[in-house]
C-alpha cells in the first residue's frame, strides 16, 4: 500500500480530480498550502513599492492506493497536473504500513 502526495498548481485541481475519478480513484484529500520551490514567489506592487511574496498558494493532494496501482495513478496525476511551466509541483510516494476503514474496520487493500 502506498501514499501518493502531490503538490500542484491550485487551478489544475479540477482537472486532476476529474482525471483521477475517471480512472477509478475513490478518494482524494486536498489541503490548501503555501510554499516555494524553484518557481520562487512573486512580486506585488502597492503604492509603487514592491512586495516579494515568497510563499505562494499550492494545492496538496493525498491519495492512498494499492502497490499495484501506484504507477498508473501517478502517471494520470502527472499528466493532468502538468502545464509545462515552472511551478507545476511534485509527486512523491511513500509506503504505508496499514490502512483501516473507520466505518467497517476493514483493513489493508480492502480499506482503500
Amino acid at each position: 500500500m502506498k501514499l501518493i502526495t502531490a503538490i500542484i498548481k491550485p487551478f489544475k485541481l479540477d482537472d486532476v480530480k476529474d482525471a483521477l475519478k475517471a480512472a477509478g480513484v475513490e478518494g482524494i484529500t486536498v489541503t490548501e498550502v503555501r510554499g516555494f520551490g524553484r518557481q520562487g514567489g512573486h512580486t506585488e506592487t502597492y503604492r509603487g513599492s514592491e512586495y516579494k511574496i515568497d510563499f505562494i498558494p499550492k494545492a496538496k493532494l493525498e491519495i492512498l492506493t494499492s502497490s499495484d496501482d501506484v504507477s498508473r495513478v501517478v502517471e494520470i496525476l502527472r499528466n493532468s497536473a502538468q502545464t509545462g511551466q515552472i511551478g507545476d509541483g511534485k509527486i512523491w510516494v511513500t509506503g504505508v504500513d496499514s490502512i483501516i476503514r473507520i466505518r467497517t474496520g476493514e483493513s489493508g487493500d480492502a480499506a482503500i
Partner: protein
Amino acid sequence: MESGNLAWIMISAALVLFMIPGLAFFYGGMDRKRNVLNMLMMNFYCVLLVPILWVVAGYSLAQVPFGNDFIGNFDSFFLKDISVAGDGGALATVAFLGMFAAITPALISGAVADRMKFSAWALFVPLWFFFAYVPVFKWVYGGWLGQRGSLDFAGGTAIHVNAGIAALAAVLVLGKRRGEISPPHSMPLVMIGTGILWFGWFGFNAGSALAANGQAAQAFLNTFLAAAAAGLAWVVVEWIRDGHPTNLGAASGIVAGLVAITPAAGYVSGPGPIVIGLIAGIVCCYAVRLKNKFGYDDALDVVGVHLVGGIVGSLLIGFFANPSFFEGSFREGIFYGGNIELLLEQALANGVAIVWSFAITLIIMLALKATVGVRVSEEVERSGLDLAIHAENAYHD
C-alpha cells in the same frame, strides 16, 4: 435658519460621520490581518470620545466667540445658551462641526498602525484634540489666520495638514515597525472604504457652505471632479512608471484629490477642481515614497496623502480662487486677477499649522512615551494587536 439649509447641514453631518467607518475600512484593508481590528477600533474610538469632548468644551473653545484671535472662552461649555431658537441652526452646526472634530484625530491612526499601544492612543486623542485641533481650528475659522484672509473651506489646513503633520511627529517618536512589511490584507475592503469616504466627503465639503446654496452645489461638483481627476492621474503615473494600474493607486488618488479639494471646494470653479485633482494625484503619488527616502515609518501614508495633499490644495487656492464666480468677498487667486497676496496667506496659515501641530504632537507623544509608554511589546507586535489588546480576531477559518 431656513429649513432647507437646516436639513442639508444635518444630512451633511451624518455623511461626515459615515466617513469614519469609511476611513477605518480604507486603513483596515491596507493593514495586516492580525491588526485590522485594532485599526478599526482606533478609528471608532475617536467617534466615541470626541463628540462628547466637543460638546463639553471643544465647541466653546474653538468657536465662542467667533472673533477671538487665538482661543475661545468657556461661555458655551456643555452648549450653554445654544438653544432651538432660530429653528435649531446653531445646534445643527455644533453637530456638523463635531463630526469634523471626530474624524481629524482618526486620520492619524493610519500612520501609527501595527505598533501603538491602545492605552497610549486613548490618551493621545483627547490631548491632541484640545491642544492641536481646537487651537488650529480656531485660528483658521474666525481667529487670526482667518482674519488675515487665508482660505480653508472645509478643513484642508485645520484638518488634513494638521493631522498629516501630527502623523509625522507621532511616527518619529514611535519608531519603525518590526519585521517584514506586509502588503494590504484586503484590497476589496480598501475599495469599499474609499467609496464610503468619497460618499461622505460630499457632506464634508458641500456641507461646509453651511447652507443649501450655489456655493454648496459647486463644492459638491468639485468634490466629484477633483477626486476623479486625482485618481486618474495617480493610476496613469503608476501605469507608466511601474507598469501596472492598481486598485490601491486609484483609491489613494481619489483620497488625495478629496483632501486637496477640501480647502478649495467653495472657492474654485471651472477647470480649477480638475487641475487641482490632477496635480494632487501626481504629487501625492510621488510623495508616498518620501518615507523610504527619509526613513520615517508612516505605515499607511498619512503624510504622503493628507499632509502633502492638504498643502497642495491650500496653496493652489492662491492660483484658482474665483470670488466673482461665487459672488463672494474673498481674495482672488493669481489666475483670476489676483496678486501673490492670497498665496502668501495660504502659505502662512499652513506653515503656522505645521509648526504648531508638529511641536504639540511631539510633546504629547514624548510625554506618553515617558509615562504609559507608546509601543506594544515585541511579542505583541509580532503575534498581533487584535488578540493581545482587544481579545478578538478579525477572521476565523
